[in-house]
């Protein structure tokens, strides 16, 4: 059974600060996706990373896939209140039929 552990579970910071969310596993994934989920809504895809060591940037968000494709991180620079939400990582592997295995999520609160 593949597991993805996200840390921290909750993060509260002031506007303008930076934050990093981590997603770790003992399993290798062929791809890893980051989503953001608002209460009562579906996960919204932010980015997909597929190559070990890959770094993708989406405005103030930087996503990194570990060299061994077992871990990933999301870094937000100069966080704004609009970044408040639940961030989910989800990994897929061919060995597991390419279904997504989700982490437990990191709830981010950015205070003005």
């Amino acid at each position, binding site marked *: 059974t593949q597991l993805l552990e996200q840390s921290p579970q909750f993060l509260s910071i002031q506007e303008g600060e930076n934050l990093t969310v981590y997603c770790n596993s003992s399993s290798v994934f062929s791809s890893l996706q980051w989503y953001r989920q608002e209460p*009562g809504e579906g996960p919204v*895809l932010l980015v997909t990373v597929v190559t070990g060591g890959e770094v993708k940037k989406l405005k103030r968000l930087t996503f990194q896939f570990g060299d061994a494709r077992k871990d990933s991180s999301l870094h937000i620079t100069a966080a704004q209140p609009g970044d408040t939400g639940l961030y989910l990582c989800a990994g897929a592997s*061919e060995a597991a039929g390419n279904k997504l295995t*989700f982490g437990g999520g990191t709830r981010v609160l950015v205070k003005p």
Partner: protein
Amino acid sequence: EPEVTQTPSHQVTQMGQEVILRCVPISNHLYFYWYRQILGQKVEFLVSFYNNEISEKSEIFDDQFSVERPDGSNFTLKIRSTKLEDSAMYFCASSRDSGLQAFFGQGTRLTVV
């Protein structure tokens, strides 16, 4: 922008009744999925569907559940004889490539009473 749409947004049903949750995936996508999220818990995989057949299912997806793609646009999840523990948000997702870029619908909140 293309999106996955789900209906209804909220379904309340009596225990033991059958429900059908409906989804319209993104039109050029080939892989379709159902996931569920019990309140306060992780999003869990239920089933994946490709080329008009189930490609993978989880332990949760037992004989109580079935999926169907009755026409070229709809993808349904049927839950027979619902139980209280089936109460959850059910998400449909679709992707063009297996395991990549899965886009999720807004979900159907199923409440079994």
